[in-house]
């Protein structure tokens, strides 16, 4: 039996949100000094951001990415201090 037409594929949309260039990231600096004290002497630069995973229904990958982008623009990221990258993977 085929699925009803209203049931759309399910996707995991991931928003990777990072502090923008030029924005101070004291967490990143603290992590870097921690790594260096653990003898990871090659550590050059650390930035700490966040990953937000959202499960959505969407007709296509483009639709899922579009939803994720709009979520970032409206709520998940603050463009004054953050930049984001959105990806989508089908899960059902």
């Amino acid at each position: 039996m085929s699925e009803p037409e209203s049931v759309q594929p399910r996707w995991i949309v991931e928003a990777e949100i990072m502090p923008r260039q030029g924005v101070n990231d004291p967490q990143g600096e603290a992590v870097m000094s921690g790594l260096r004290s653990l003898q990871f002497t090659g550590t050059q630069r650390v930035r700490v951001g966040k990953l937000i995973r959202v499960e959505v229904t969407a007709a296509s990958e483009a639709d899922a990415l579009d939803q994720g982008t709009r979520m970032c623009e409206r709520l998940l990221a603050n463009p004054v201090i953050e930049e984001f990258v959105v990806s989508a993977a089908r899960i059902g």
Partner: protein
Amino acid sequence: MTRIRAGVISFPGSNGDHDALHALEHDLGLSVRRVDYRETNLDEFDAIVLPGGFAYGDALRCGAIARFSPVMAPLRAFAEEGRPVLGICNGFQVLCEAHLLPGALLRNRTLNFHCFWTHMRIEQSNTSWTAGLANADVLRLPVAHGEGSYYVEDGQLADLEREGQVVARYCSPDGTVNECANRNGSVASIAAICNVRRNVVGLMPHPERATNSLIGGSDGLRFLGGILETALTAAT
């Protein structure tokens, strides 16, 4: 003369609302009412205060969720009519997230929660909330924040300086602005800013917690008292 009516907005997680209500009512003599974040009409008020605290537990970013509360639509209209709005600490963060003020508040550069007395120097006495002060006045006020490091990008900082939107800077007790006094690492030592129209002001220090020498200081009254000057001017 009818008393000035001030509303203090309570979001889930606000904790400075009662301090603000007490200061405005008992120390300044205003008529006050706590405004629930679900209310949709602010017509009765002459001034609105967004208090300190941790609205929505600071989930995602400070102020990010509170920005979508029902009360924010009438607040925007209130601000656009030129009526006085003050955001204290978390209230400042909410106003930035709502784009009623420019910029954003980042994690303190020390990564510590800052809870101590600080000094700020008034840079602009011509706002709705600093009208009772003079430029270069130094106020001693408490701070209590983890994300108080004010940020705007360089180009926008130049705009703020040119438009006179930098209302106060962290300073030493004698009024000197330097990096030692700028403990959270704010751009240009900024402690308080206003919008272009000068009726919306946000600051990280807590004037409502410095209204009586019995609680450590009364300089906060000098700040909040500016609203009396503004209301008086508006009435004449």
